[in-house]
Structure formats: structure tokens, C-alpha cells
């Protein structure tokens, strides 16, 4: 089969395996309808958000809330949000923290998930319980802040990564997937003298692409949308990540406290429209990232790996 026909196939005709029966018309319709309903349930509200973010201020003022039916379009909310020099810098910060943080979190999490994937190993239960306890007991802000400060992490980017680097939930999910891989696959490698690190890197991880993609996404989303730690641990405004800058930009346009009349802008922009624009901007990285993750969800993609 030529590459070309392959391409055509993947785009058009779905690869229905020979053994699978032709679907019923009714079943197909029901399935399609259900899927459509789910998507419309999401797209409806999303529509309202997008329309509001694109509506001129007089329209939003007249409607007095979110705009459902578009009456004129302006991109001023977006240009206003993105024009400040701070936003471009903050995007760099956020991208950097997300990349470094996700890599670091994945590294320690994958190691730990594998390290805990063999029940009966020394300290297995102890480590597992040590980890899980942190899911249920939280520390207050003051002790956490004092710790981060005494480690000299305040006003460094490390304060945005280290305190939140580990998600026990993510490790448990990884571990469950690792444990689902048949030991027969690793046994032969072990007999050949491969160590655990090699088994992890050459057998387990290639077989776990889907879950690795998912957990990376969880970590990345977490780092990308985090803002509270930055607002507490950082004092230098030039270090702030994107979420903080967006939150603060939007606030600028809500009415300022009294005594600060001079800070109130004379209303070319609608606070609501800006807030909606921020929401839409927040969705863009997700829309961009999701095909990359989806690629790892192809059905039955592991069959080849086993047979080959």
C-alpha cells in the first residue's frame, strides 16, 4: 500500500476491521445523535462566551449580561489584553514553568510509579502509605509559606514548581497502568540481564504512551493554570506567569476602590467582555494541545508492539 493511499484511507474511509460487522443504521444514528447532543451542550455556552468576548461595549451594556445573539463584532478586548508588554513576557514565563515543571514532575512520577509497581518489594507499602496520606491531610498556608521562604525559594521560579511538583493521584494512575502490563514482557528482558531502569525505559514506557500522554497533560494543565502560588511566593511583578497577569489585567477594568477614582478607566471597554476574552484565551492552549494527546489514544495501537 502506498503512502498516498494510506493517507487517503486514514482521512476518509475509517479502518473497520474485517471481523467487525456493519453497524446498524439505527445504532449509528443514535450514537451520532448522542455525540452531537453532548457537543452542542458544550458549544452552546461556549458560543455565548465567545460572542460576549467579541461584542462591543455598548452591546454588552444594553444586554446587561452575557450576549447570546451577536450584534456587531470587535476584537478590541483581545488586542487590549495582548498589547501590554507584560503579556508576552508572562507567556514566556508560563511556557517555561510549564515545560520545566512538567518534565520534572513526569520524571519523578514515572520513576516512583515504577518503583512502586512491584508489590512485596522492600518498603513498598510504607512508601505507598506515606504518599497517600498526603492526599488527605493538608497543611495551612502559613507553615507552607514559612517553609518555602526558609528554603530560599520565595521570589524564584522554583517556588512555582517544587511545592506542587508531585501529584499522588497522578502517580497512582501511572502505577496502575504500569502494573497492567504483563510481567511476561519484562521477564525475558530481566533474564537477559536488563536492570529495572532499562526495563522501564525500553519496555514499560513505550508500551505506556497513552497514559504518559494523559499524565503529562494533567501536569501541564496544572502548571499552566496555576496562579495562587505565584501570587503568594513572588513579589517581583516582572516574574509573574500569564494567569496572574490576566487576572490582574481584567481587574484593572472593574471599578476601582474609592479614593482611587483616577484609576477608573473611562469605559471604552466592558469588564465582562474582557473577562470572557480571558476565558477564551485560556481555552486556546487546550485546543492546540489536544490533538497531540489524542494521537496516543489510537485504538489497539499496542497490538503491534506485542506481536512485533
Amino acid at each position, binding site marked *: 500500500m502506498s503512502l498516498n493511499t494510506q493517507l487517503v484511507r486514514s482521512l476518509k474511509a475509517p479502518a473497520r476491521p474485517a471481523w467487525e460487522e456493519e453497524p446498524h443504521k439505527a445504532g449509528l444514528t443514535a450514537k451520532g445523535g448522542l455525540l452531537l447532543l453532548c457537543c452542542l451542550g458544550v458549544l452552546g455556552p461556549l458560543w455565548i462566551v465567545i460572542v460576549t468576548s467579541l461584542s462591543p461595549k455598548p452591546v454588552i451594556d444594553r444586554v446587561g*449580561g452575557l450576549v447570546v445573539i451577536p450584534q456587531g463584532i470587535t476584537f478590541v478586548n483581545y488586542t487590549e489584553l495582548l498589547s501590554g508588554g507584560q503579556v508576552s513576557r508572562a507567556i514566556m514565563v508560563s511556557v517555561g514553568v510549564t515545560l520545566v515543571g512538567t518534565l520534572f514532575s513526569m520524571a519523578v512520577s514515572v520513576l516512583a510509579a515504577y518503583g512502586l509497581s512491584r508489590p512485596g518489594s522492600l518498603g513498598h507499602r510504607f512508601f505507598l502509605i506515606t504518599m497517600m496520606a498526603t492526599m488527605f491531610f493538608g497543611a495551612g498556608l502559613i507553615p507552607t509559606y514559612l517553609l518555602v521562604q526558609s528554603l530560599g525559594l520565595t521570589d524564584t521560579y522554583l517556588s512555582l514548581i517544587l511545592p506542587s511538583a508531585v501529584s499522588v493521584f497522578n502517580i497512582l494512575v501511572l502505577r496502575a497502568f504500569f502494573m497492567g502490563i504483563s510481567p511476561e514482557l519484562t521477564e525475558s528482558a530481566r533474564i537477559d540481564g536488563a536492570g529495572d531502569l532499562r526495563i522501564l525505559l525500553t519496555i514499560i514506557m513505550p508500551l505506556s504512551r497513552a497514559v504518559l500522554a494523559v499524565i503529562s497533560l494533567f501536569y501541564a494543565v496544572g502548571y499552566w493554570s496555576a496562579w495562587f502560588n505565584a501570587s503568594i511566593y513572588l513579589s517581583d511583578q516582572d516574574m509573574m506567569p500569564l494567569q496572574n497577569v490576566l487576572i490582574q489585567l481584567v481587574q484593572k477594568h472593574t*471599578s476601582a476602590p474609592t479614593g*482611587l477614582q483616577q484609576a477608573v478607566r473611562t469605559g471604552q471597554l466592558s469588564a465582562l467582555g474582557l473577562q470572557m476574552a480571558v476565558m477564551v484565551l485560556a481555552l486556546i492552549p487546550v485546543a492546540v494541545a489536544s490533538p497531540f494527546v489524542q494521537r496516543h489514544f489510537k485504538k489497539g495501537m499496542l497490538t503491534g508492539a506485542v506481536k512485533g
Partner: protein
Amino acid sequence: MTPNAAAPSSGPSGPSRRSFLASTAVATAAVAGGMPLLAACGGSDSGEREGATSGKAADKLLPTFVASTVANPDLPSKNGSAAGYTGKVDLAALKASVPDKLGTGAPFKIMSPFWGSPPKAGCAYYTALDAAAGTKITWQNQDGNTYGQKLGAVLASSSIPDMVVVPSWELVGKIANAVTAKFMDLGPYLAGDKVKKYPNLAAIPSDAWRMGIFGGALRGIPMPAATANWIAPLYRKDVFDKKGYAVPKSADEFMSWAKEATSAKAKVWACGDMTWSAWSFFGVRGSGPIGWDTGSDGKLTYRIEQPEYLEALEWVRKLFDAGVVHPDDKARTGDAGQRFTAGQILVWNTNIADWYGKVSEQAQSNPSLQIDAIDLFGADGGNPKLYASSPATIWSLIRKGASKTTIENALAAADFSAAPYGTKERMLVDYGVEGTHYTVKNGVPVKNDLGNSEVLNAWVMLAAPAAYYAHPDFPEVARKQVEWQQRMGAFMKKTSTFGMNIVEPTRWANLSSQFEQLEIDYVRGHKKLSDVQAAISTWKSSGGDKLRDWYKELIDKNGSGN
């Protein structure tokens, strides 16, 4: 468990929930338009290590008052109102209020809450201000939404910035103790005639300074507020005129007008949540220390014990039951101010500062919009019974252990930002540098983009002159705001606790904290009147009566505030 529980964005105890309070607080501030409201509606009901210093003892701590004669307001303060300036800006006529640079240029750090996106260090605005005041300030402009948490954590650490701005609504729990423990007595620099070195600080009214006494010493440099400062029931004058509605003058009139004006089909409701106005209509005092007063019968009572408290709530409940309150206000979502300008509600009770905010915001897109404020009426149609609000709500403080040079530089900065309206310093603080941050057209200063992004609420947080309104672009609004306060101020009386920075003992600090929610629930029909009554008697038995004794002793010792 949804996978997002795995997101590493937050620590286990959930910063999102912490952040939320602050955002609610600022949302309230945004809806209410300002800080005095928050003070009036609770949150400020605790303070330093128990008690207050007032009367003669306090007067010894205070700076001598030296009125500023630099620029006289067109409408002087009367009946506790703010002053008003209704003229145009003439840059050539601005005077100097700080003859000599008081700062020595020694660097120091200031932490303050900030709403907006803070400018970069070394921006033109900060540089110009530093040059003019002779200071060298490193700003730590912290997000106003999470300021309370940041403040709580920073104060518990051993590295506190040299100068810290503390708003009254962050003085919850034990933060007030921290103010006494961590910040210095400014008496040696400001008490009596010493303040004369700082002429603008000397011109801050003594009532406001008195609120800066924490733990028996003058620690806070205040941002003064007008005492004739109530939530104003703003109304859409254009709609009232068009429909021929008469402005209501009693609780019953309001009710019948509201029923007439409401038409759910046309998406018009009479009003938002009127609880805050109802306190004024019925003569209920504010919450916190200012809610205590000795009646004509000599009995000291708290606001929830006033018979008017339940009457006010019952009236608001009737408004909700009658369906004249906008459903979104019933659900307390969205922005009531936006519903007001969209004409979905015709009466919006809010901070009077929103009057100007909405007029200027709508001037271009909706020039026909007209706003006025309903004169507060007595519920029965007579004169209202109004209580003075707190004369200061934000302080800047200097950390204990700061060097003499740092203190003098911090005071120089505060003095600069307390410059009265009509001075070069005020203009610089409020608008930045002419040509760089703003231009003056027809006597109205207009900020350019740089001005909008750099000249924000940093310097203005350090101190302020006596309360005033000045809107060169809408001078009529300033006049009406001041006149409304003056008319209402005529009916104002002070409670026995007025003007004292009182700290209730922590064991009773949360005694009254339930009531705000109870009020919200009762007027919306989610609680019964008997629930409120039960809460009041529980309040009495579980500490309220003891708190009364404590207040009685305090007032006997310090003298009444009225």
C-alpha cells in the same frame, strides 16, 4: 475523582478556596465600588490586643492638626461630608504643598495591595515620583485579591517589608494583633508638633488619625474617609423622568413604586438587593464596634438588638417576595452595576463613588443615561436616623526595627501622597507626568495609554488628604455627591463607639460573624424570622451579654465617642 484533582496547581488545603474569599471581597468592593462599604458591612470587627485608646489618652498620641490652606475646596466639608472641587484643572495654578524634598533617597520596600496589572519597577511614573519626593522605593504590588493571605503569611515570617499597607477588611482574626506586634509606634515622629515637619500629614483630620491607634500607640498612617458616608440608592433618573415615576419617600412608597415599575416580561425589575439601604431607612447601625450604642434609656445595645433590625429585614424580605428584585440579585451573581446601566434594575444601592464611575463609564456609549441618588428617608416617611461611619479604613504601617532613615523616608512618601487636591504633588500622584502620562484638554486631564498602565493604585495607598470629590470631567457629579452627603449628614449621629479603633477580645471575635449570611438567607426566603430571632438570643447567651459588659467598661474608661 475527576482527573483535575490531580492538577498540581494547588496545595492540599486548596489555595483556590483561600483565593476565593479575597475575590469575593473585591467583587463586593467592585459592586459596592469601594472600601468604606466593606468596613461598614463587617470584616473590620476586630483589632489589636483588646480594647481601644480614646479620649484624653488618645489625644496625647495624636499629631497636631494644621489645616492645609494650599487649595480651598469649592464645597467645603459639612456635616461629615467629603469636600468637593468643581473647577477645571489649571496646571499653571497648581501650588506646591511639599516645599522641600523630605526624602533622603535611602532605598526601602513597600508592600501594598494592587488592583490591576502593576507597572514595571523603574517605570516613568515611579521614577518621577521618587525624584519629586526624594525617595527610592521598591514596590511590592501584591494582587489585591489574595492580599489577605499574603499579608497573613508575610507577617508570620521574620522578613517584613519596611512599609506595609493594611486595609481594614484584612484585619480579621489575629491580623490586628500582628499590627501591634510587628509595626512601630510612630509617636516619636508624629505626635504633637513633630508632625509639622510633614505638612500634608498634619492636615489629615484628627478623627482619622485616632483610628490609627493600635495597641495604645499611633502606628497607622490613615487614609481618611467621610463620616457621612452611606450606601447610596442610586436611581436611573432618565427612566424615572420618562415614565413619570416620583422618587419614593418612605418604605411603603418604595414598595408600591417597585411593584409598579417591575415587569419581568420587559426584563425590568425595580431594584437589586436593598438590604444596605434598608439599614439607613430604618436606622440600623453598621456592624462591628460601630454597631454598639448607648440608647436614651442608658442601655448599651448592639445593632442586632435594635427592633429596627428585624423591621428592616422584614421589609427587604417583602421586596424579594413581591418579585421586584432582579433574579440575578436574588442569586447574587453577575454585576449589578451592569444591570443598572442596562436598565434591568432602576435602583441600585451602592457606594456613592459608583455614581461618578458609572457616569464616566457610560458617557460615550449611552449619553442619555442620567443617575441621581435617592435621599435616604425614614421608613415611616420622616427624617432618617443615620449613624456616622468610620473616619479611616486603610492604613500604612512601618515595621518595627526599621532604621530612622527608613522611617523618615517612608513618612516623606506618605506626606507626598497626602497632598491635597489642587497641588502639584496631588496631580503627580494621581495623573503622573504631564505629556508623558496625560494631557490637559479644556481643563480636563486625560490619561494616555502609558498613564493608564502606569498610574494606578500604588502611591495613593500610602496616605490621603481629607476625603474629597473632584471630577474635572464631570464636576456636576462631584457637586451632587457632596451635596447628597451634606443633606444626609444633617441627620447623622455618632455612636458611643465612634472614632475608636476598638479591638474585641478574640474569644468573641466570631460571635457576630454569622449574621451577615443569616440576613442574606432570610431576605431571600431561605430562613425564617424565627431563625433570626433564635440567632439573636443565642448571640446574647453565648457571649453577647458579656461582650456588652466589656464594651460598657471600655466606654466608661475611655469616654463615649459621641
